[in-house]
């Protein structure tokens, strides 16, 4: 007794070994996104990232606001790296509006940007720690971050959403006695992060856990267009602070950290080395900064650009090169603002890295991409 279904109704043959897991958006190990993972036993056979849960239409909103009022909402994608995410927009707007920034303002921007980079990386590191089940590495960075947040608060008046950079400089001058406090806290901060080595970075269990997982070769890192720590962990010496210095980075001595391995461990170690480098840059900038002078150029209310122009500026943020493409058509509002965010660019590597990995490696590979879902969605 054979009974055949019509072709359209025939049951699709499903490989029963494969199980589909929805990692996210309510999963503790995903952030604000979903990764659809198919596993065969403990091995991931396919992975499909699904961002978009926190898409806020920043680019659309920017077309309706003028160059100054764009500032508070354009820093929202990465509020813990808010100075850096605003930086390319401000640089681009300055070029479009034709503003020359005072020297002291440039140094203040560099200090704020480097402090913010450390704040971002500490947050990232805290989550990387808890993704690996290392609760101490969650608490220590989250606590020591307070040292720098305190500095940013003194500097800008807000703890995370600073809205500090404007076309033409920065909003306010440094408070009195800031240099000493900054130097003291940054020095202590550097001492603290060097203590992480014994517990985290030199921990043999961590090393055996993350070595040779999610290996991204040099060719693939370039081909996928990854950026930031992911790129530098794969052996590409590329840091915009050195390669295309903006503001006063060409006057500072910036060292680029490069590792050859391209695995999760290297990708997680590079940001930590970057933080130590940032401390150096802050010390240099504090030393070379002009002790007085203006920090902001007075703008006309509602500044306008001249005709149809476009500009593409990029900076090295905590996650990598962050670009901003502004098209203006001579009105008060920009015609189009496009943020080319590093998280989005690094996301392309995720499906390729996870394929063939074990499920236990998923959090470490995923978060070692230095990925921030809110920024990718914009």
């Amino acid at each position, binding site marked *: 007794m054979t009974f055949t279904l019509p072709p359209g109704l025939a049951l699709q043959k499903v490989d029963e070994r494969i199980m589909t897991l929805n990692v996210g958006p309510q999963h503790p190990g995903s952030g604000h996104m979903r990764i659809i993972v198919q596993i065969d036993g403990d091995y991931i056979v396919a992975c499909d990232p699904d961002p978009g849960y926190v898409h806020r239409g920043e680019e659309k909103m920017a077309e309706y606001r003028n160059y100054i009022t764009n500032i508070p909402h354009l820093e929202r994608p990465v509020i813990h790296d808010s100075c850096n995410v605003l930086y390319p927009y401000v640089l681009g707007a300055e070029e479009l509006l034709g503003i020359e920034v005072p020297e002291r303002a440039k140094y203040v921007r560099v200090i704020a940007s480097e402090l913010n980079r450390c704040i971002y990386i500490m947050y990232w590191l805290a989550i990387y720690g808890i993704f690996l*089940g290392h609760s101490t590495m969650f608490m220590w960075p989250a606590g020591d971050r307070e040292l720098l947040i305190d500095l940013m608060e003194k500097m800008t008046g807000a703890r995370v959403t600073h809205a500090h950079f404007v076309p033409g400089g920065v909003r306010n001058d440094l408070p009195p006695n800031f240099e000493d406090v900054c130097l003291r806290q940054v020095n202590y901060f550097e001492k603290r992060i060097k203590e992480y080595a014994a517990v985290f970075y030199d921990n043999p269990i961590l090393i055996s856990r993350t070595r040779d997982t999610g290996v991204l070769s040099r060719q693939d890192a370039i081909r996928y267009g990854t950026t930031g720590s992911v790129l530098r962990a794969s052996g590409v010496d590329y840091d915009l602070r050195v390669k295309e210095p903006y503001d006063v980075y060409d006057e500072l001595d910036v060292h680029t950290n490069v590792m050859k391995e391209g695995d999760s461990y290297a990708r997680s170690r590079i940001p930590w080395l970057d933080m130590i480098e940032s401390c150096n840059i802050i010390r240099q900038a504090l030393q070379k900064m002009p002790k007085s002078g203006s920090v902001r150029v007075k703008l006309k209310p509602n500044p306008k650009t001249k005709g149809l122009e476009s500009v593409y500026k990029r900076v090295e943020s905590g996650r990598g090169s962050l670009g901003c493409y502004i098209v203006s058509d001579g009105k008060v509002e920009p015609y189009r603002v496009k943020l080319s965010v590093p998280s989005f660019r690094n996301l392309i590597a995720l499906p390729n890295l996870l394929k063939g990995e074990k499920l236990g490696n998923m959090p470490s590979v995923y978060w070692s991409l230095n990925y921030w879902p809110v920024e990718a969605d914009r």
Partner: protein
Amino acid sequence: MSVIAPQFKLSEFIKSLLDNIFWIILILVLIGIPAVFMILFAMEMPVIDGELLTPFLALTWLADPSRILPVVKAFMSTDIFRVMAFPGFGFAALLAAATIFVERKMLAKLQLRVGPFYCGKFEGILQLMGDGLKLISKEIIIPAKADKPIFWAAPVLFVATAAAFVAFIPVAPGWVVADVEMGLLGVFAVIGFFPIITILSAWSANSKFPFIGGIRALFQMVSFEIPLILSLLGAVMLTGSLNLSEIAASQSSFPWIVFLPIGAIVFFITMLAELERIPFDLPEAESEIVAGWLTELSGMMYGLVQLGTYLKLYAFAGLFVVIFLGGWNGPMVVPPFPAELLTEGIHMGPIVAGPFPGLPLFDQEMLNGTLWFVLKTVAVIFFILLPRGVFPRIRVDMLLNLGWTKLIGLAFVNIFIALGLLYAGVLGPGGLQ
């Protein structure tokens, strides 16, 4: 401005209090007093003034306070007391609660934060009670497609099995719930139940993450049970007995860890794995599989599993102490019982209290043994808790690799050391002991 509770009325509040008191008294009368009488009927009553006390006369201690101590002492010699209170469940639960408190505060200190601080006046000492109340008051949510009887039973079974494990641990000479001849085999048998309960709970939840977590727990526990058993065999060979009390008693001069350090290390690592503690907490790996096999458990079901986990932690630490650290053996530090309390009572100026005919409740040996046992157990628990602060989670393949190759090999080395000591005559008959 009563914005928080705009409907608040004092009379309603007092009414609710009285209501609660009424129900408490009712339940006490209907359940509490019968339970007390059942215990009184079951236990062997003491002889007072030459006549045997009957359960019906037991409550006469309300009129005659000198009868309290004999009744209490008689109760303490029953099995019910042993199971429920002292070497059994109550004692273990108390130590488990202390463990949770110490774990929280110690981990907080290590991570440069404060930890529980406001609940209870001193350093958040009542935090656990608050957590328990919260868990009891939470709604229990059962997944729609769960296999409900097994899903309900699994947490209860888990606690019961953990309590059964606790029953094997001798705390002081003679003070053990189940003093069986094949005690260690019984321990192995009970440990073997945990993966079954885990996989039952995980399977019955009918959800993906608990399933993966359950499978991982099964892998982990099964693969680590073999080195666990092997690592304990060395001590069994040297002692020549499987009875845990005898193993503890045999270490009166030196603990076995002196001769069997490799076995102790292997047992410690497998213990961490069996307890699902960091770095081996794969079945509950939060960032990978939410909460593993505990994902669908809610409310007090989760609380029961946590209770079972900490009971298990105490039991494993106790097993380590009994087998490698000499159990209750230690220098006598407890002062002898003052005999004049029995004959004369306490003289404080004009006031005379006593004499107390029922005393002493516990003898000196037992108090000293318990003290040393608790001290050693706390030390072992500290070392079980410490890795949580400094190690990340490991991966399944690393775990299985560690269990099946390295630890089993080391356990065999340990057995050979024990055999060597035995045949060389250093230990065993004619040796040091």
